[in-house]
């Protein structure tokens, strides 16, 4: 019998569906989100809400460029970030930095010096990027879920079953990206109190349909498909951009050796991840669990039995 917890069960490269016990699962599905062609239209955000009947996120102007839904949340499963930035640090001299995104970065624009000669202004960039649950190879949210509500699908994706979730909220701090969240409102909405996040449209891809967000994206910034193939495509795209002189292009989450074993949903970015509000080096928060398990840490053991039972239940 295969040990319940393998060498890479919680860390390192694996095929998550096979690891979860599926025999002969279909190819792992995921997203390659190429932010270099995103036009910030938010069709993905809206399509996701339509398909999944997600309530609105409130109506308030944030002043964070054109981002008024702020971040991924229980009520926003696709989120488009807008980053206004001067490309050259020279901009600091005229005081006109980025619009405040509420995250680390240059200070907001206040200085009057911008009125001076315009030709000194550096090239300006407006980055847009559609964020989503990463469907981690090693998903801490799933690892810590005591009820088995969060489960690994045959497509290698991570999905919440709202009718099983008891609202304990363990998954919320476990996610290294801050993706999953319990719904707190609005009043009358369904699944209030329940953990919510992208399902990678489990109820569409099983029927051979593309996820709603990818289907709506006009520029194919969101590409859906087999993760292996998408990784190849993403690599080729980075090379193409480098050849075209866009040296900032880089992949985020595509490496199976990274802290979450590679994300099922990974990204092509044009700047450091922090610029987009993404953690620079995310690590599955349960990475050290096997080590701790051997040391028979009582708390960890209790947690893991729950997780192991959840796996076993779906085996074969």
């Amino acid at each position, binding site marked *: 019998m295969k040990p319940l917890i393998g060498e890479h069960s919680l860390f390192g490269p694996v095929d998550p569906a096979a690891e979860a016990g599926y025999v002969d699962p279909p190819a792992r599905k995921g997203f390659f989100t190429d932010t270099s062609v995103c036009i910030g239209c938010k069709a993905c955000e809206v399509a996701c809400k339509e398909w999944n009947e997600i309530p609105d996120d409130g109506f308030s102007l944030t*002043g964070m460029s054109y981002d008024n839904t702020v971040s991924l949340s229980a009520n926003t499963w696709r989120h488009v970030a807008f980053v206004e930035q001067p490309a050259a640090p020279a901009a600091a001299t005229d005081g006109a930095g980025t619009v405040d995104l509420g995250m680390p970065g240059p200070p907001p624009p206040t200085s009057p010096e911008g009125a001076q000669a315009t030709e000194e202004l550096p090239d300006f960039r407006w980055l847009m990027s559609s964020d989503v649950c990463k469907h981690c190879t090693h998903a801490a949210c799933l690892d810590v879920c005591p009820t088995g509500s969060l489960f690994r699908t045959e497509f290698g994706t991570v999905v919440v079953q709202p009718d099983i979730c008891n609202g304990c909220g363990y998954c919320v701090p476990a996610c290294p990206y801050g993706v999953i969240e319990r719904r707190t409102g609005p009043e009358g909405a369904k699944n209030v109190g329940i953990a919510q996040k992208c399902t990678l449209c489990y109820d569409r891809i099983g029927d051979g349909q593309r996820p709603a967000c990818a289907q709506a994206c006009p520029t194919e910034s969101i590409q859906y498909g087999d993760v292996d193939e998408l990784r190849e495509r993403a690599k080729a795209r980075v090379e193409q951009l480098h050849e075209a002189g866009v040296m900032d292009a880089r992949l985020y989450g595509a490496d199976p050796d990274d802290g979450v074993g590679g994300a099922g949903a990974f990204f092509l970015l044009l700047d450091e991840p922090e610029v987009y509000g993404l953690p620079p080096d995310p690590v599955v928060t349960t990475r050290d669990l096997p080590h701790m398990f051997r040391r028979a840490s009582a708390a960890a053991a209790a947690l893991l039995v729950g997780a192991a039972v959840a796996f076993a239940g779906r085996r074969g």
Partner: protein
Amino acid sequence: MIQGSNMAEAHPVGFQWVMEAKARGAKVIHVDPRFTRTSALADQFVPIRVGTDIAFLGGVINHVLQNELDFREYVVAYTNAATILSEDFQDTDDLDGLFSGFDPETRTYDPASWQYADAGQKQEGQGRQQHEEQRETASALQHETHGLNVEGDPPRDPTLQHPRCVYQVLKRHYSRYTPELVERVCGVSQEEFLEVCRAWTEASGRERTTALVYSVGWTQHSVGVQYIRTGAILQLLLGNMGRPGGGIMALRGHASIQGSTDIPTLFNILPGYLPMPNANQHESFQDWIDSVRHPGSKGFWDNAGAYAVNLLKAYWGDAATADNDFCFDYLPRITGDHGTYRTVMDMIDGKVKGYFLLGQNPAVGSAHGRAQRLGMANLDWLVVRDLFEIESATFWKNSPEVETGEIVPEECRTEVFLFPAASHVEKEGTFTQTQRMLQWRTKAVEPPGDARSELWFFYHLGRMVRERLADSTEERDRPLLDLAWDYPLHGEHDEPSAEAVLKEINGYEVATGRPLSSFTEMKDDGSTLGGCWIYTGVYADGVNQAARRKPGREQSYVAPEWGWAWPANRRNLYNRASADPDGNPWSERKRLVWWDPDKGENGEWTGDDVPDFERTKPPTYRPDEGQGGIAAIAGNDPFIMQGDGKGSLFVPQGLIDGPLPTHYEPVESPFRNVLYGQQANPTRKEYDRDDNPMNPSPPELHSDVYPFVFTTSRLTEHHTAGGMSRYLQYLAELQPEMFVEVSPALAAERGLQHGGWCHVVTSRAAIEGRVLVTERLRPLRVDGRTVHTVWLPYHWGSGGFVTGDSANDLLGIALDPNVLIQESKVGTCDVLPGRRPRGRAVLDLVASYKERSGVDVDPGTPIVTVGPDADVHDHRDPVMRKEDGDP
């Protein structure tokens, strides 16, 4: 080249093809007053002062001509560059911003001196009177749509050396549009400007083509038509017209604005661009037809008689016979300006009784919102058909004028009928998109409740009115009673068959019902009928061709089997120009259609697209002298709708404001025109009324009271006047509040806080919004001064999940003379921190600005600013005002 368009935000679906072109190596350049989501994806962004695009493009034309970078072979063969002009023509450089033939009294031109040399002597003055009428009825461009009327063979100099040939005239006209001047007028650095020139010319010619994209950022100006003309001149000079990957892409509105000009919702044209008969000019059926055909002229409009007869037969069926001129007398006549803005003024003046609004929200979406609302508040009745209860249905109980007390709900006389409308997924029919392509929509779901389609509404309205009048013996009711009003109905609500309507639009043989496959089958004897000749073929063989959905990968790259494009399913107009004069492709890379001498009996035109040329007319064909109509077009003249078969660099007829585009300042501008004494378009249409004041501009005093330039446009997240977005939470939450974008420098100058409030003031209104300080707006150096641009989205009103003031309230009404489009992309304003005053106090604020600027004394602005008749209003001078005893 994307200019005057925020394509990524306003046309995101079409923008996927720009991204695809970019992925294949195309360079994308965006020229715009503001850094938008389009700029974010472009390879180069060039900020430009709003309202100066003719100066910019004129600069590019100058660069092309001075450096001889034009595609010479194409230019000589396919344009009127070689044609020699009349000796009497005088250009704007001779007359300080006016062309020859100007009459300051009527502010119109007599175009006699603009004609080709040796053109038959036109009677003096006749042209001027025509221009006056054409400005009223927006009919000048019928010359353009109906082709240049060219008689005889004007002299040409193919060496392009003759001093009066169009090429030399053009070169002189733009010689002052140097990089230095572009920098001074547009605020574009010479370096950036020359980079655009380089990119554009390097990607044009035999092996390469450049596409030019514009939208309402170009059209909504008092010189809107001339903006597009400038683009056309450039694309002709560079050989980009009628060729794959070239052309000028006018991005039309969502989702069927193209369709609503083809089968128009305009007062001055009928389906297929036939003119609405004019009471003064078209007394008889023959007068009307001849005004389109120009008997003796060349070109494709020669068959206009058949198109008109088919339309009348479609309207009046059996009642329309040759004996009664096919009921020509039943058509309404126009007598002058009945455009939307004139109508609003007439509403205010109590001359209009009723008004229909369908999918239109003028209380928010049209220029001068205040005039729109006050007009609607003075009707007997108003019908609003919309998805939600929009502001144009609630202005009487909830609007800025209710807040100021100018509209009192209890007293407002207008009876408003609000009808719920079916949305596009709840009804069948077609959309005609920006490429003239018709795409059929099937109904996905039943409309909820009482919501119905427009087709249902008008069919049954017509039916009920006809039933009411059934016993009438009044002559005036005959047009209604004789209508062919007989569409098959289906479903529990008696929905008329949209496909039957499409078949009628397509046309068919009256006797057999056989659908026509081409407008060449249309007869002028009443044996065929068809509602829109350019759409003939969409129902060929009894098949709904607009419903075709063959995926692109299963057919040629032109994709002729997806939907159907007019005319004749041709995807690229004037594509004869993609081949050289001998009929061979200019290059293998850029081949589209060509002459195949081995095809058919004596050779045929063939290619990937439907050739835009008579199929069997060989490139060597030359007309005999004196021939007219289509036969007069030579085998090497690709622009077949033009009387000389040539692309018009210079336009001798059809433009009220001159044969060549010339830089004029916007009607409201903080700057004096650097190029000419004439400040703004001298022939523009203005409504000089107290309720339509214009902010002063140089050379008049006090333009500094409104020191900033503003422009308005759309956000992706909202749809135009918001009727389809503010009422949906998923869209409303994405842009939840009215905001105003300013540069960091302007914010500092006016003390505006990011996220705080500001208000914007013009002589029409003061509106408020939250402040978004962003580097996407940049101050520009223009004529030695810094100019700030303020940007406002125009989506908000008092209804929906998210409410706010309407940017269109800031605008006054000044119109382009050719097509009567409003100058709504540029105006001047002041910006102040904090919220605007409430109630009547907001009127006081606007009034205080008017007083400071002298607008209270005279709401108009001087139009002719050059020559002895210049009428600059020095009475606005405070000293003079005192002497005059003004308050």
